[in-house]
């Protein structure tokens, strides 16, 4: 790093958002600096050692299609891979992997180290350089003033962090890192809305102290799937299993007796925790009739002796944690290596952001990751990627990339956050995506690689390979539609063998493929079917296209219906009080949210279709005035 240097982009924070942001910016050729308070914790998994899952795996594939880090890193660091929802349809199938923490960190670091235009530097950030209302750089802990066209803040839970274990609490970031108190105070002084959230982790257990004999083993899939389209297929390390155990009435009794010492119930914690990831004390209180809760014992790594008992995050006092853990099957002799704790932290209201993740109040400042109220590595990484791209676009005066809700989970994520904000740590679920059927893991590349190409994130060779793949799918679709099979071509026996029952009337191969009981392989076995596609990915794509056809057409029509006003920009300085006909309530909502587009305005709860019509009339009137 050069202390005199002017950067295009400075990324603050070396977590999952920060690494994706820095990597994306550098890939676009921007002179990029990643500043982190510890180079040794770049790519650190501070919570559970796993990547992916339903909704989250989708995000990883999207990051990957844009040329990002996460998919490649987990392919090199995963020690148990599974495809979830295997028996359900392709839209909701998702990949998940347990990670070796050390291998993951190393993989991320290696990917960053290989990346041209990217420098890493270890220092804290105490302040932002703001000139004429625009962010121009940062001031570091040792007093360096580093200038940049755009700054991406990805400081996670480090803002105003407070850790709770029973009735003990102290200031702190995750896993022992120092909190950025100075920066937090600086941000609090800005006109940004700040609120508080909390999350928690379970105590870690020494694997040697666990009796696995009585527990259910959960092995990974074989062959193990890959996340990244760039992986060759030989990157996975050795595979290990997880194990499943349960809490029981004795466990729950220990918890109940200690509730009065829980900071959650004593009122010590003010932050709101996630409903989908409650602490074990929450589960016991809220679902009092349940006499057991599932726990997944997840290995932290191939060489690590620590196990992450997923399902019992807690902020109960340490003596209760010991008693509770030892009451669980297989854990009678458990030795805790680190206590569980809850952490409260500040987040900045994401409604103060443009969907490009640029601050509405401070041009040049981009925010990504947990600081925006999300939880999860994948949600953070996806935002980082978007913020990194848009930080560069900002400097180059290019239009920002704002994916729509029907284009990517990333679009759902930023639209939800910047339109509605969040009151609990935001996690992705597939049920958040109304266009779920078209937002699949399997077509993330088809959806996003053209965007990646436009923004200069992938090279020519990869683009050509992608185009060949896309053309192969189109060709195969046409072939299936144009190849007609007649009953006479088959004969009853052959038809029945391949299709389950004889063919009654002539049909295209595509029409046959629409039937859920007929697979592509069944068709390929038909004597009259012609030459099948060789690439299994092409076979998969045409099969899904056949199965989902009617639904996808309807969704496309819905998208078309929305799109007429979806992208109509609302001026940042629009005075809603002057829009004729708007009710006071709607005026206040719009003034509060400051939607970037008419589509976003329409999704704000309480904004009626009539209000959207009024806005449209207002905009049109402004335009007619100008052209008059």
């Amino acid at each position, binding site marked *: 790093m050069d202390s005199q240097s002017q950067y295009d982009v400075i990324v603050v924070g070396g977590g999952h958002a920060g690494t994706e942001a820095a990597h994306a910016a550098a890939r676009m050729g921007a002179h990029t600096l990643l500043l982190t308070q510890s180079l040794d914790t770049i790519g650190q998994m501070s919570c559970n050692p796993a990547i992916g899952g*339903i*909704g989250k795996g989708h995000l990883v594939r999207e990051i990957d299609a844009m040329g990002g880090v996460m998919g490649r890193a987990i392919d090199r660091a995963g020690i148990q891979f599974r495809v*979830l*929802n295997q028996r*359900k*349809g*392709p*839209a*909701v199938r998702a990949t998940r992997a347990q990670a070796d923490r050390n291998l993951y960190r190393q993989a991320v670091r290696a990917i960053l180290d290989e990346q041209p235009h990217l420098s890493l530097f270890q220092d804290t950030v105490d302040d932002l350089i703001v000139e004429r209302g625009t962010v121009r750089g940062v001031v570091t802990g040792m007093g360096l003033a580093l200038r940049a066209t755009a700054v991406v803040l990805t400081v996670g839970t480090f803002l105003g962090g407070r850790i709770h274990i029973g009735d003990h609490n102290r200031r702190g970031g995750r896993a022992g890192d120092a909190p950025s108190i100075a920066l937090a105070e600086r941000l609090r002084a800005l006109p940004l809305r700040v609120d508080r959230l909390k999350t928690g982790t379970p105590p870690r257990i020494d694997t040697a102290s666990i009796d696995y004999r009585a527990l259910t083993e959960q092995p990974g899939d074989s062959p193990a799937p890959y996340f990244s389209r760039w992986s060759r297929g030989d990157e996975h390390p050795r595979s290990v299993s997880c194990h499943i155990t349960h809490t029981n009435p004795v466990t729950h009794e220990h918890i109940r007796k200690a509730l009065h010492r829980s900071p959650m119930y004593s009122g010590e914690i003010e932050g709101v925790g*996630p*409903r*989908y*990831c*409650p602490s074990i004390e929450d*589960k016991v209180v*809220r*679902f009092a009739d*349940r006499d057991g*809760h*599932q*726990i*997944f014992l997840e290995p932290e790594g191939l060489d690590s002796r620590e196990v992450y008992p*997923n*399902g019992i995050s807690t902020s109960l006092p340490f003596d209760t944690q010991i008693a509770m853990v030892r009451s669980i099957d297989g854990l009678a002799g458990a030795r805790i290596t680190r206590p569980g704790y809850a952490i409260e932290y500040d987040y900045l209201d994401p409604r103060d952001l443009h969907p490009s993740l640029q601050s509405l109040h401070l041009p040049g400042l981009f925010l990504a990751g947990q600081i925006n109220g999300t939880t999860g590595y994948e949600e953070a990484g996806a935002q980082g990627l978007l913020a990194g791209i848009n930080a560069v676009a900002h400097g180059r005066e290019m239009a920002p990339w704002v994916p729509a809700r029907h284009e990517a989970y990333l679009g759902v994520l930023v639209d939800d956050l910047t339109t*509605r904000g969040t009151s609990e740590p935001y996690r992705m*679920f*597939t*049920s*958040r995506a*109304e266009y*779920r*059927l078209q937002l699949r893991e399997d077509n993330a590349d088809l959806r996003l690689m053209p965007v990646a190409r436009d923004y200069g994130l992938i090279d020519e060779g990869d683009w050509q390979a992608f185009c060949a793949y896309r053309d192969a799918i189109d060709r195969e679709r046409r072939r299936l539609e144009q190849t007609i099979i007649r009953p006479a071509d088959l004969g009853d026996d052959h038809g029945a063998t391949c299709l389950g029952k004889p063919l009654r009337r002539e049909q295209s191969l595509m029409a046959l493929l629409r039937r*859920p*009981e007929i697979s592509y392989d069944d068709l390929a076995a038909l004597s009259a079917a012609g030459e099948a596609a060789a690439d299994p990915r092409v076979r998969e794509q045409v099969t899904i296209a056949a*199965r*989902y056809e009617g*639904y996808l057409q309807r969704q496309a029509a819905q998208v078309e*219906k929305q799109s*007429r*006003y979806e992208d109509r920009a609302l001026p940042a300085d629009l005075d809603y009080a002057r*829009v*004729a*006909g*708007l*009710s006071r309530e709607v005026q206040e909502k719009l003034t509060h949210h400051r939607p970037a587009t008419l589509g976003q305005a329409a999704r704000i*709860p309480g904004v*009626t*279709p*009539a209000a*959207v*019509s*009024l806005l*449209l*009339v*207002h905009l*049109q*009137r402004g335009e*007619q*005035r100008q052209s*008059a």
Partner: protein
Amino acid sequence: MPDGTICAIATPPGRGGIGVIRVSGEAAGDCLTGLAGRLPEPRTASLRTFRDADGEPLDQGLVLWFPGPDSFTGEDVAEFHGHGGPVVMDRLLRRLIELGASLAEPGEFSQRAFLNGRMDLTRAEAIADLIAAGSEAAASAAMRSLEGAFAHRIQDLVEQLTELRVHLESSIDFIDEPLDGLAIDRLADRIEAVGEAVRAAREAARSGQQLQEGARVVIAGAPNAGKSSLMNALLGRDAAIVTELAGTTRDVLDAHLHLDGLPVQVMDTAGLRTGADVVEAEGIRRAHQAMAEADHILLVVDDRNPDEDDGLGAAWPASAAALTRVYNKIDLTHRPPGVGDDGVAVSALTGAGLDGLKSHLRGVLGVRAGDEAVFTARRRHLQALDEAAAAIDEAVSAARAGHGEELVAESLRCAQDSLGQITGAVTTEDLLGRIFSTFCIGK
């Protein structure tokens, strides 16, 4: 939003013999040919028979065709001039919806005209007012349409659908959780049951739309003034028991009739007098209540004693305009029948003056604002129920055919979106909230 093809009744509600329906948008031509045959010459009226999907005549009237951009809205516009009764108008609208139109939002025709540059800038304010006021009226009309049993029924449907979605969505998003999810075959049965409930609600609402609704006309007056006779005469049948004895009608009787297609609910009440027995007093209490809720009161007066105390007392309606004096028994007094300055003279016995009374009623009821809005609101509700029923059918067949849960879930989401147009949307946040409070989720 300028989007798709819209239709609406363009004439004031319930008035006059002619009703005009206007259609605007790319499917306007298809609507015209579907309802009334080939496209006529632009901007010339031609007489056509309007037909339903089976070719059965619905009405006869004029059609006009204004191809865009030289039309009021700048889009293709079709106009249908039919007989103005709400029942006929409703049938025509339903047919147009089948043909691809949707009901216009308040002010939407003007909005489109403005957005397409067919209206100058100075009108923007007026259009904004139209949208704002119109949507307010529509909202209150939707509330009125949603009163009572219908609302409970729809709420119940929403609740049942939500419960199914809670199970289905949680089995998709929370695979590692040991949820007591529903097996897909049981799910299909339960979805089918909800589908039947939707259809039942739709049928109830559909018949209610024409029969249960309409203006409320209460016939009141002193005992034995001939209220029940007048009701029977209006209906053309013996709905009420008529005797020579005063106080025969002790409860409120009601019946429905159409005045030139305007649905009217006529209620006969107990005669109003003091010193009645307990049963009759209860009848009088109910009569007072009916009058308080009436859109219009026909106060029947025995023409032989026109100045006798009418017994209305405290039940006198707030607006005198909502009351018509009907001088009955003119066959005995020889007053000329028909509408006069202070009321309408009739003979329920001979039928003299009844036509005059009907057209008088038609006039006073037809101008009731809001009635058409409620009608439109109910029409929207029916359309939403139709869409929900179709989406549920699709979910059932997907579940039965062994398609993935995500496809069943997609159809249920559409069904819920449709019902949400009636009751307000169930958002993802609502659904997730339900999932997290129903199931213990989180590993």
